[in-house]
């Protein structure tokens, strides 16, 4: 078991290493370097030389990689080009903002999705299922930018209950954040909850039709006891991985929502730094997002392993 965990961690580290290589090489082989891309038309003479010097582009590529990589390992991503401030300072508030948005969405969305999924499965084809399923399918099919825009239109503009656009000072307290993020959270949760609820529903339905559930009924196990002991543990196990992917997506990928609401999270930073050709920041983001994916998937796999008796005893026996 321990060996397995170590193995998985090792694999994750290797993945990260490869990602870092790819982004680094990608930046290297692009025509021009960080300075020419950044300075654009002014890329000549003294300005270019100064930039090259400042970024250390005059040393060989592998040396620069080693240098960069060893700094990253120590948690230092170097300097951004545009703001010319340490990338850590650029990233810090963004990571925090993204974390807040993600954790609030998760805290609301995932339990809601599980409850809705279970309700729709247990009352399959009855009124609760038909109602909830219609809504979930509806919110799954509307693209994010439309639902987000509609939310702004209705809640912010027509009703005027909440601000339509998020304006957060970089030192905003958690409370200030909270009132600002209600709309983005709703927009994100709609899609995420819908997807997950559908998944939980089909998983529960599948388990409900299994022989062992039929057996539990025929054994005389009361309905709710059967649901909680025989159905849910087996039905929710496959959901762990989906939850993990959703969390990873929330932390790095809610670009559209962040743009529509002007939310200063990681997703928007990706867009901004790409359009500013700020290559060091792009590199840093690639590494951070890759670590999030690797880390969360690792945790999910380990949890599945712990909770599934089949896998668990397989491991022990080996």
């Amino acid at each position: 078991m321990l060996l397995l965990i170590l193995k998985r961690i090792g694999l994750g580290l290797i993945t990260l290493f490869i990602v870092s290589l790819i982004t680094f090489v990608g930046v290297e082989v692009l025509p021009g370097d960080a300075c020419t891309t950044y300075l654009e038309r002014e890329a000549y003479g003294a300005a270019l030389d100064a930039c090259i010097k400042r970024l250390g582009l005059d040393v060989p590529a592998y040396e620069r990689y080693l240098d960069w990589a060893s700094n990253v390992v120590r948690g230092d991503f170097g300097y951004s080009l545009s703001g010319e401030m340490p990338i850590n300072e650029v990233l810090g508030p963004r990571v925090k903002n993204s974390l807040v948005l993600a954790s609030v969405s998760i805290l609301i969305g995932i339990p809601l999705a599980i409850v809705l999924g279970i309700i729709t499965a247990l009352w399959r084809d009855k009124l609760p299922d038909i109602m909830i399923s219609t809504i979930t399918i509806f919110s799954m099919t509307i693209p994010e930018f439309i639902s987000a825009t509609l939310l702004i239109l209705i809640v912010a503009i027509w009703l005027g209950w909440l601000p339509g656009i998020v304006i957060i000072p970089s030192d905003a307290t958690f409370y200030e954040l909270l009132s600002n993020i209600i709309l983005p959270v709703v927009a994100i949760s709609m899609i995420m909850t819908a997807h997950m609820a559908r998944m939980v529903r089909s998983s529960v339905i599948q388990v409900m039709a299994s022989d062992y559930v039929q057996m539990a009924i025929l054994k005389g196990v009361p309905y709710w006891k059967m649901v909680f002991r025989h159905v849910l543990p087996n039905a929710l196990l496959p959901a762990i991985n989906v939850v993990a992917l959703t969390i990873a997506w929330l932390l790095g990928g809610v670009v559209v929502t962040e743009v529509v609401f002007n939310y200063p999270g990681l997703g928007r930073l990706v867009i901004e730094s790409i359009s500013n050709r700020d290559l060091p920041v792009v590199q840093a983001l690639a590494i951070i997002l890759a670590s999030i994916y690797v880390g969360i998937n690792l945790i999910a796999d380990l949890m599945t392993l712990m909770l599934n008796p089949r896998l668990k005893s397989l491991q022990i026996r080996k």
Partner: protein
Amino acid sequence: MNEIIESVKNLSIGFNSQKGKQISILRNVSTNIKKGETVGIVGESGSGKSTLALAMMGYIKQGLFPLKGECLFKSEDLLKMSSRQLEKIRGRKIAMIPQNAGQALTPNLKIGYQIDEALKLHTDLNKRERDKKISELLNKVRLPSPETMAFRYPHELSGGQQQRVAVAMALAGKPDLLLLDEPTTGLDVTTQAHVLELLRFIAKDTGTSMIYVSHDLGAIAQVSDRIVVMYAGEIVLEGPARKILKEPIHPYTYGLLKSIPKLSLSGLPASMPGSQPQPGSINEGCSFYDRCNLATDNCKKNSPDLEHIKELDTNVRCFNYKELINQNNNLQTSITKKSNNGEGNEILKLKDVSISYAKQKFFDQLLNKISDQNPTVKDINIDIKKGETIALVGESGSGKSTILKSIAGLLKTKDGQIKFENDRILSSNLKMRNPNDLRAIQLIFQNPDESLNPNHTVEQILSQPLKLYFNLSGEELKKNIIDLLKKVRLGEFYMSRYPRQLSGGEKQRVAVARAFAAKPDIILCDEVTSALDVSVQAAVLNLLQQLKEDLGTTYVFVSHDLAVVRAISDRVAVLYQGRLCEIGPSQNVYKFPSHPYTEVLLGAVLEPDPDIKPKLVAEDIVEEKPPEKGCSFQGRCPRKIGDICNSEVPPWQIGENGNAIRCHINIEELASLQQ
């Protein structure tokens, strides 16, 4: 003994078809279960026996609903009870033992918990008493070390052990009535015999009534006092077990019994034509009309009622049953087949073949070798003659399919050679074989549902090999397809059908036709009849035999069913844990002296005859790996003679009637021991 505990009255159950029509799958079923009695419900797949059994617990599968009638348990109608009331009866008064215990035990809960759950629900015992009771129950179903067993998860037990746990769980509530739906189907022959023995013991010991549902008359014969025969949702015959099995007076039951291959007979069983009608397609007349050789015009127009015949204590649904009274000596006959007794050249030779599933280590992979000292299959030497049917038998895990796969080139051999025609070595890698060798060896699988592409019509399925191997097209292709269909007795109109529009037997015929399309020299048959009902199985066996006699094909026939093997094969090889135990002409393998393992297998065969009880000579423990040295059967051998069996590989001995046995016991001594 005469108190009735459950009574089904005029029960019909059905569903609404997509066109909104009401279709019944159980029609007007009535029967009574008496206290302490074991009733066997038998019928082909789809005859409605599970639906009936579940209804007797007040359980109707999703999508179905009762149309008419009642299920009275102690004169209360289960079908009218609320789920609250049913919870009080299920498990406590009526308990169920499911078909596949492996799937019926909840995977995330320990065995002990699942039994405890039943105890908590149905008894007033406290924690300590319950723990004691769990041990007692596990002991009663003869599971080894009950104390540790309770802490295991279902997947940590073998199939037979899981089935025992299910029995223990059902007994927890001390039910008055036990329902068993195919409780031994899918278990190994020896395990099956052990579980049945256990059930008989429990019925006698506790006085519980049992309803035993199965398609297998052999299993039913071992446990039942009374038998109910179902056909297309109706009861067609009902009476005392011995009467039904020995003097069946309904044409369907009669045909069913004749289509079961028997150990004592060497020929092929007679087959019944046709197949059971689909629910909803029965309009008027007797539902067995299409397949019945006693049918008259009357049968086509009127449907017979279930008639009670007092002197035989039997209910029968047939106008012409009288013609079958005193016909029973015909049951013990079979169709003689032309057998191949060793003429012809050798077409396929397996020489010292070993096969390993062990994962290759990295370095071995580089050197392209397999380093497993204890491979799954080891030292197989078999020479197969042209036109012969050789059978490989053994329990699950004996390596039968593994050997087939490597002959087919799907699995690499570790050692040894496979030689085809004139001693030419066949590569064990499919990609290295030449197209003609690929054509010459064809495979038919156990489950036609998995081997036929559901999105292709029969025409497309059959045209693939014809195009691939013979480059046929247009009219000629079509003519060949029709020829093939004719060979397997299917009409031309089947060409446009999809697999889902075929019955199990028809599907397997299409699979046979596809194999023959390549005009192969050798056909490898992997459990080709195990998924089929007996009447269909007999038809497929007869078809295979006919094709072989016409075309001179060689079969390598893998099966776990010794009676089927006896019926079809010329020569038999018995395998245990991937090692050969015995090989010889089939009539000799079924005679003593036998290898101790063959003896165990033969003893465990269930015959559809209440007077032939299986002999349980060996434990049904499962071994996960073959032993490293000595005899492969040492772990279970009832005749083991001592250390020599553990340390030395036994020698081959040739008996006087030509079968070779691999055992340390002298063959004459074996013969006298087995008298």
